[in-house]
């Protein structure tokens, strides 16, 4: 018994490099070998995001308007944000909704967002300029001003698309004049980029624009109050949210494939925490025994 306790006590101080190696294996093995796995349970906030887009498509007036997909991520968070972005764009394209790609946190965001739209456009026969448009990149310092101006004159505020064509020359913009011609704001982001939309755009028109949020898992929790306060109509939380959304759409994307690695790594951490605590209690017990002896 004592030998067993001593073994557990030693497990309390596993060298960190062994922890790192274990983690690398937990992540890498499921990627190298395709593991079958069950579908996730869909969370209410993900379902609500899905329903928001569905109801826009069903509304004869709203479905004619333009959605804004703001892709504020960079290469660092591709795994989460790109997967979310693909799921959203796929959904919009399935429902034949028009949308604009836009970014203001990093110029990379615009490039990445545009690349996703271009890739899926082939599949859904979307045509640039009439089904979707690229509003370009706006430097973060200027976003406040840009959005304030866009409230009354959207094409005027953004002026040109990323290729330099005047927005007014594109067929998709024919019906888009002001904030009232926007039916949805999608914010895909790894950072604090939601406030400009909420402060200067969402409620600047005749009625609030449905706004949905696709943050990395770390940014999500602090925004739950906004779901309750009605400032957000849905949220796709990190890679898990993307995987749930893929379930709703019935597709197998990266969200689904990465799921096994996610599960294993979480399991590893929980086991390690368990081991560490057992070790601590075992040590206390040993010490007490020694104290008695």
């Amino acid at each position: 018994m004592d030998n067993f306790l001593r073994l557990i006590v030693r497990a309390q101080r596993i060298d960190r490099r062994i922890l790192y190696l274990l983690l690398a294996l937990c992540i890498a093995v499921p990627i190298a070998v395709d593991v079958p796995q069950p579908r996730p349970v869909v969370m209410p906030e993900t379902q609500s995001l899905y329903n928001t887009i569905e109801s826009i498509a069903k509304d004869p007036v709203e479905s004619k308007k333009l959605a804004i997909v703001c892709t504020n991520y960079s290469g660092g968070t591709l795994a989460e944000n790109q997967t979310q972005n693909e799921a959203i764009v796929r959904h919009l394209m399935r429902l034949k909704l028009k949308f604009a790609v836009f970014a203001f946190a990093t110029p990379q965001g615009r490039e990445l967002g545009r690349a996703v739209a271009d890739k899926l456009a082939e599949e859904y026969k979307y045509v640039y300029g009439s089904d979707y448009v690229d509003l370009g990149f706006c430097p973060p310092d200027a976003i406040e001003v840009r959005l304030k101006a866009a409230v009354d004159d959207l094409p005027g505020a953004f002026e040109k698309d990323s290729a330099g064509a005047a927005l007014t020359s594109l067929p998709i913009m024919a019906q888009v004049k002001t904030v009232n011609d926007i039916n949805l704001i999608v914010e895909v982001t790894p950072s604090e980029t939601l406030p400009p939309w909420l402060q200067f755009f969402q409620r600047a028109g005749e009625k609030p624009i449905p706004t949905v949020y696709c943050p990395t898992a770390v940014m999500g929790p602090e925004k739950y109050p906004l779901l309750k306060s009605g400032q957000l109509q849905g949220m796709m939380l990190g890679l898990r949210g993307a995987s749930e959304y893929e379930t709703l759409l019935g597709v197998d994307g990266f969200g689904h494939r990465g799921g096994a690695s996610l599960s294993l790594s979480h399991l590893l951490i929980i086991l390690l925490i368990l081991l560490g605590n057992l070790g601590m209690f075992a040590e206390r017990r040993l010490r007490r025994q020694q104290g008695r002896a």
Partner: protein
Amino acid sequence: MKHATWPARIILLVLSGIILYAILSARRGKKLYLRRIPGLNAIEEAVGRAVEMGRPILGSIGLGDVDVITLQALAIISSVATTAARFAHRIVLPLRNAAQVPIAEEALRAAYTAGGRPDVFNEQDLPFLSGEQFAYAAGVAGIIQRERPAATFLFGTFYAEALIIAENANQVGAIQIAGTPSTTQVPFFIAACDYVLIGDEYYAATAYITRQPTLLGSLIGQDIGKMLLLGMIILGVVLVTFGSPFIANIFGDKDLETFAAYFRAATGGK
């Protein structure tokens, strides 16, 4: 909210008025009480240990621009520097934002002078590490592994790089004190650091360390302001429970017409 509604004007004016009144009365010499904030007493201890071990101190004022939060962080690091200067001890302070460079240099030079050892101050100990978040993190991690600081002081705005810095410092056995208003990073500081300032303890810290009447007064004003908001929340919940969204409407986007409608309803539709 694009422009102020009337309730917003009144609330902001009242809050600002309370804070300013508290500041001004503190500056006129009113005695002020401030409760103890545990982590702050550890600062001297950490500096002392670094001196004993003969290894440098590492500071960071985070990723923020030259803004309110960063300036608060700099004030805390400066007071650490004054203590360190008394023992002619080195502080390394890597910077992420170009505009922070001249301000940090000036502040630390002043701090070392105040501690009596301006000769120990060296501009090379305040390196600028690119404008990019993770390049900064990579640079700080490298500095930590090479210089093996005995104590770290991490104050300011932090994002995901917080854990990179804190874990590397943990590996070299540094005693760590951190404080940040970025709530998302607090749990990681709790996990990796010895003392952590949470939420607006961060704003209280400078007042507590410097004992400046202005800052103490401001803190008292903030307390009264928070009590006011809390009082309105409690009153609002009671009113909502009895069917009146009055307080909820005050904090809404709609301006006077809502209240006109409310009073019409309250007075029987006149």
